[in-house]
């Protein structure tokens, strides 16, 4: 303190950039474990992460990065979506014209639209694959049941977000896809008709529907999704990080751990008395800390497990950065080469033949062509219900954290049947259905 008062104004001016930098980023690039820990802890964006993560969580072959990809696609969607909002008007007379302007007049307009469109499709796919990963590695088992339930809701919201966005260009593709999609919803017993009416704000797709879908798409659903994502992330930490095989936590017989060896200790200390910690910094590298014992729950496996964890900085953050960049690069490349579709302006009198829902609902539409109620509402309803109940039905905690664990043969088989059936239905609906919903060959 005395040192600072002694400095001349000139000197403080020279130090200004560094001081500003310091005031924002309290830690220099870390060279010690304590530094690594406090880097994670003192940065707002990084403190969402644990200070140390289990090695297993970093194995690309285990997670495939699908959760992160979903999240990053959502980030891209938020950013591009907000930018697109500057030029979009949710009006039946103007929406399509604005699409034309985005294509022709607005700088980077077409590119932003491409990014938004392809990210949206990508997010639906990524979230679904993420769910497959979680199931096939048995990661929904206790204590992670509720996070699985949240995940199922996130999938539903993602689908609904994509669906509401589908209408906004107000072209033939959008109009009839939404007409078909909401009609599928109206097959629900008792409430179906009401749901459709409330969703569309009218008996047919029109200005009211466009406005409602717009509000849902840009405000309601993203807010809901963000909230659930936050809880989803929080639960990951509270549930003890990503799932891993039991063996990983098994106590090696010849190397018993002492109770003072703690994963998250330094951070806690840092939080309570940074000054003391900083003073002790040089010697801290070898010291162990005890946890304060405040937090209870399944994650505090302290002292009786082998420490197979690594510091989040830089291991986890580097991995996240790589996944982020790969996601961005993928979206950019796809957007560079493929334009988002824009079909004819809406012509209420002329439905295209066949009128198709968005691709992720084509499985439903295919089912509807066999039975309206069962295909559109009954079976999907049961499927969602089963998905939600999975962790409460299948409670045996074996085969967790490994792909296609032998103990989970039946569960995996059933789940894969469900996935493959739906994928096949979607493929049939997308490629093999022509005019009058008749079977055609795509080549």
């Amino acid at each position: 303190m005395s040192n600072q008062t002694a400095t001349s104004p000139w000197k403080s001016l020279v130090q200004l950039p560094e001081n500003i930098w310091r005031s924002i980023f309290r830690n220099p690039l870390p060279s010690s474990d304590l530094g690594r820990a406090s880097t994670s802890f003192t940065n707002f964006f990084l403190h969402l992460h644990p200070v140390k993560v289990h090695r297993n969580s970093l194995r690309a072959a285990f997670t495939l990065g699908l959760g992160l990809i979903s999240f990053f696609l959502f980030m891209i969607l938020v950013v591009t979506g907000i930018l697109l909002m500057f030029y979009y008007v949710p009006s039946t007379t103007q929406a399509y014209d604005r699409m034309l302007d985005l294509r022709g007049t607005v700088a980077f307009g077409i590119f932003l639209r491409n990014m938004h469109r392809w990210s949206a499709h990508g997010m639906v796919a990524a979230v679904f694959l993420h769910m497959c990963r979680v199931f096939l590695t048995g990661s929904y088992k206790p204590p992670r049941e509720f996070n699985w339930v949240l995940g199922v809701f996130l999938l539903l919201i993602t689908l609904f977000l994509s669906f509401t966005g589908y209408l906004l260009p107000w072209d033939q593709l959008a109009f009839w896809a939404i007409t078909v999609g909401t009609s599928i919803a109206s097959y629900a017993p008792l409430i179906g008709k009401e749901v459709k009416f409330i969703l569309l704000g009218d008996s047919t797709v029109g200005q009211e529907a466009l406005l409602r879908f717009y509000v849902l798409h840009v405000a309601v659903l993203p807010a809901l999704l963000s909230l659930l994502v936050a809880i989803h992330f929080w639960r990951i930490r509270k549930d003890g990080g990503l799932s891993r095989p039991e063996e990983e936590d098994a106590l090696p017989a010849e190397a018993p751990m002492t109770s003072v060896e703690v994963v998250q200790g330094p951070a806690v200390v840092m939080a309570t008395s940074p000054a003391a910690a900083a003073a002790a910094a040089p010697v801290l590298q070898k010291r162990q800390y005890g946890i304060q014992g405040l937090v209870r729950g399944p994650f505090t496996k302290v002292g009786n497990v082998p420490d197979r964890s690594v510091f989040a900085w830089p291991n986890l953050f580097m991995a996240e950065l790589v996944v982020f960049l790969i996601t961005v690069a993928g979206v950019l490349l796809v957007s560079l080469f493929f334009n988002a579709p824009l079909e004819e302006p809406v012509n209420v009198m002329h439905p295209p033949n066949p009128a198709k829902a968005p691709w992720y609902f084509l499985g439903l539409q295919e089912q509807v062509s066999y039975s309206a109620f069962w295909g559109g509402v009954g079976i999907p309803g049961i499927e969602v219900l089963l998905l939600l109940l999975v962790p409460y039905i299948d409670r045996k905690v074996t085969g967790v954290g490994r792909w296609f664990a032998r103990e989970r043969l039946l569960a995996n088989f059933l789940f894969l049947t469900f996935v493959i059936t739906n994928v096949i239905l979607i493929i049939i609906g997308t490629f093999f259905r022509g005019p009058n919903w008749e079977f055609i060959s795509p080549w």
Partner: protein
Amino acid sequence: MSTRVTLAVVSFVVLIVHGIVFYDQFFNRWEKHQTAYFEQARSLAKTDAERHALDERSPRIEQIIVTQFGGSHVDRCTTCHIASDDPRFQGHAEPLTSHPYSAALGDVQNNGRWERRHKFTDFGCTICHDGQGRGLEVFDAHGADVFWPSPMLGYVTQANWHAEYKPKLTGKEYMQANCAQCHTEENFPGTALVQRGRQLFFEKACYGCHRIEGLSTGTLGPDLSDVGKKFKINYLWEHTVNPRAFQPTSFMPKFDLSDDEIKALTVFLKSRRGINFAETSLGQYRARLQQAKVEETSKPMASAAPSPARGEQLMGERSCTACHRLGDKDGHIAPDLSYEGLIRDEDWMMAHFREPKSKIPDSIMPVFGFADPDFRSISAYLKTRSASPALKTGEEIYKGLCSRCHGEKGDGKGVTYLYLDPAPRDLTKAAFMNSKTEDRFLQSLKSGVPGTSMPPWERLLTEDQRRAVLAYVFQTFVKEPRGQIKEHKVPEQNPIASNADSIHRGEDIFLQRCTGCHGRKADGKGPNSLDISPRPRNLRNSFFINNVPDKRLFDSILYGVQGTAMPSWIDYGLTQNDVGDLINFVRSLNSQKVSPPSEKSPTLTSQAVKQEVPCQSNAKCK
């Protein structure tokens, strides 16, 4: 380390894509065009001030916003076509050329300086040319994108248009459709093709089936009042040439039209956009009032005493021969009327005029809502044509009278066959021809087949002539020798009494066995009917059914109809009693007398049909 390499590579990819996208935003083609324009204009400039002003200008998006034609048209065409209103660029290459001046467009010359009638600042570009005003790339702006509903009329064809017709769909004259949006008056010199198309609309009897607001009232085909708004010219052209090109189930006939006529019709139809720019809804309302007045005043004139002369005139004016044949005029679609006066009596003709379906239930002839005296005049005129044709041999008779429908090869595919329902009999099918008695064919020739287009030839052909033509048919078309006709043992009269029980049983059997072809309504339009030739019989055609004796029905159902898809139901387990019930059911559908429709109200017939349904309370029937 591998993570770091990936990171470096991927971040570089991201950078490169960013660079490409960023770079791509500049150097638009329109900027080059504008720069080129500034340079050329500079060399043409006469004063320093002009040159200075040009130096100041930098490329930017030019646009004209036109609101006076309903909605908001944003035309950015002048961004590339920046010299379009600069007379110094007359005759330069596109896009830096000046729009030509033309007296035909109303442009006037004042002191050697042209002045435009249609100022670009008032009209923009797409009002006349179509295309996509907001586009800044040629592909988008000119409307070559297959999804764009209005490509530049006469200049641009889209990739998915029929290759054969593409070259015919270019030419400035297509723009007349847009001129006619404001210049709605007839005989406007600039819209000659629209005018010709309008004439053809009446000459080809299109008005009989199609409604166009303010022009016609037909109801059989779709309303064409705003057809130009819904469809591109390729659709209008192709649909006119071949009505089944886009809709395989269309029953619109294929008319004999030359390319010029099709073009005129296409342009005329393209000009139909509901409310035109020049017509406000108030204007339309006034026009309708005016029209109603004209109709009222014209009625007494129409009811002038019916006379054959007036009939002949009407047949010309109202374009009967757009479909029918009369003497040497022939539309190649509907039956020959040359001897109609001999074949039919006046009552039949009048009933048929008022509602063609009242005589031939599946006729495609529209209801022409002419005044009764007009119909009487036409009947009277047809009656005057009472000379029998001088045809002697069977061959002559066949070629003169029969081949129009039954075809020159006797295969039932004469020029009219697509438009007749039931279709003309295929006379080459020996299985059928040789399984029916000669008497039955002679009977059909003599009295016709009621409810179908086969007319009674009694008054035209003597018995000998009829025998001669039948002999000709057997000799030329059937070819196979006629063996002994196998008589099946069937009752002469239906032994099962017709009562509610029997009809109910018959209905059950019908719903189980027959609906696949004959349809749930027994109208011959079951789901399989399209794949069957000849088509399944319409069992609600009362004229036909009521004329067929029980014996023939028993024979046809139990033992099938050879040469058709009707199987022998005795092989599928139907007993004689079952068939009796079936016959009672079918007869009950046709039991109500078809009242001779004295009024030309189509709702009357549909009501009659409703009353006929005996099983309305039956759940199966719904």
